């Protein structure tokens, strides 16, 4: 399978561990990710102001680029990019007046956009097109004994019209964990917000929320968290330094991108996981489970 791919800025900068592990895994699953040309920032966050059309230009221009390459589907990995592209797409599909305005504003583009591109998240491809049962057959190193808590946050699930799963009781990450042989841990905070962009101005708020989320998972026996958003990752992984400063009982827990676990279970070279870029080093845990070799 070949599919048009939107990486987004963060996967090219802060989250290389997300992109590298994904691309390696997908090529071993015979999925060719075709990074389309001249993509721009997704818009970073979907604008909720109804007359603030300028912030819909970035996502729609990306969909024009996909269309230019004669593709009708585009896949992203970052939950934020997914949410922004998908919602902008929904907006213009439902509001032809806004779509016209945007097309008129982008009068230099050779093609006009008419809502014909479908925006997908990689988890949807893995679930619906590859199939978790097929992945289970293809894995070489089942992540046996690894207890992982799925973390969805907001952007994969909300609002429900663009969510990839039930917003209240999602199972897609749990099913994914099952396919790679890990044990999924149930806990009540999996769809809680990580505090998102408050991380720029209100670190304390992030620290409190992240502490609640992570501690809840730890108390239920989780040894690691799995997620699909670089911003959630920043708040739950990098901010553990600040969490420890504020809560002396906090022990710390490694955070994985789901693609890192996929790559590992597919038996790919550990290097593609780029674990050195994870803030909390997950390698001691993986070594203790004999999932990676000794140093």
């Amino acid at each position, binding site marked *: 399978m070949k599919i048009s791919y939107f990486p987004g800025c963060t996967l*090219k900068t802060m989250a290389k561990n997300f992109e590298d592990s994904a691309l390696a895994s997908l090529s071993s699953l015979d999925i060719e990710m075709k990074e389309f040309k001249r993509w*721009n920032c997704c818009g970073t966050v979907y604008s909720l102001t109804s007359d603030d059309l300028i912030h819909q230009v970035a996502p729609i*221009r990306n969909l024009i680029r996909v269309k230019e390459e004669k593709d009708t589907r585009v896949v992203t990995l970052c939950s934020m990019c997914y949410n922004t592209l998908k919602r902008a797409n929904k907006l213009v599909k439902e509001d032809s007046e806004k779509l016209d305005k945007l097309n008129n504003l982008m009068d230099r583009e050779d093609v006009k956009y008419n809502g014909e591109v479908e925006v997908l998240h990689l988890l949807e491809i893995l679930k619906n097109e590859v199939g978790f049962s097929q992945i289970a057959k293809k894995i070489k190193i089942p992540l046996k004994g690894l207890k992982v808590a799925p973390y969805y946050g907001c952007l994969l699930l909300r609002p429900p019209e663009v969510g990839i799963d039930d917003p209240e009781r999602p199972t897609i990450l749990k099913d994914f964990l099952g396919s790679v042989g890990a044990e999924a841990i149930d806990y009540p905070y999996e769809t809680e917000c990580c505090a998102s962009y408050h991380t720029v101005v209100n670190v304390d708020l992030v620290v409190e929320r992240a502490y609640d989320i992570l501690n809840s998972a730890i108390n239920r026996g989780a040894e690691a968290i799995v997620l699909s958003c670089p911003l959630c990752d920043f708040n739950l992984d990098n901010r553990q330094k600040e969490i420890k400063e504020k809560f002396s009982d906090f022990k710390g827990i490694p955070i994985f991108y789901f693609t890192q676990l996929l790559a590992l279970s597919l038996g790919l070279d550990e290097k593609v996981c780029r674990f050195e870029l994870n803030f909390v080093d997950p390698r001691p845990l993986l070594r203790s489970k004999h999932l990676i070799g000794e140093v």
Partner: protein
Amino acid sequence: MKEKGSVMEKEKETQSQEAKLIPVYIMGKRYEVPEGLTIMGAMEYAGYQLKRGCGCREGFCGACATVYRTADDYKIKTGLACQTVVEPNMYLAQIPFFPANKAVYDVDKLEPSISTFQELYPETFRCVSCNTCTKACPQDIEVMDYIQAIIRGDIAQAADLSFDCIMCGLCAARCPAEIVQYNVALLARRLYGKYLVKKSEYLEKRFKEILEHKYDKEIEELMHMDRESLKKKYYARDIEKM
């Protein structure tokens, strides 16, 4: 890159013949100027003396950035005043200088990474992908694309895409995010040149040859050449492909 320079030549030709007069509006006032003049020529013909906002008159220095409108079109158009030929009923103005934010740094102390841009030009990340900058660029540079390349940390691509920039300032004048694209790109090219580009052995070799006076004779010849032959040689030069 666009063909440059020849416009001024043609302009001189038209002036020598009896050219037809066409109406243009300079800062709102109507003038009749000979057909075939450049915007810069038309302004001077009308009596304006340009001290700032003009330089090489050959389309290379970027000093003469200008905005104009043509009759019956709502679009703001941009160009180099020394290269754009006047049309009847053009509305003209000259931008003498564009005040732009410029970071001060020591390139030896910088890192070739996205954090350098976040620190020195944080406004870069305000780009909304409107593409107004690209539409404004008289060099036909994909300005938005080089800004976007920087946002995703691809300094090499930004350096490559912005290579033909003549720092005319039109992109910055039009940007709703108040980014000064050309200064951001200059930083990208500096970082690329200093830290990222592959070191050229050929350059080292050529440098050594220069020090050994291998080209002194040729330089001497050029120094004594008359204007016409020098010009001929210049336009016939080989331009190396990147």
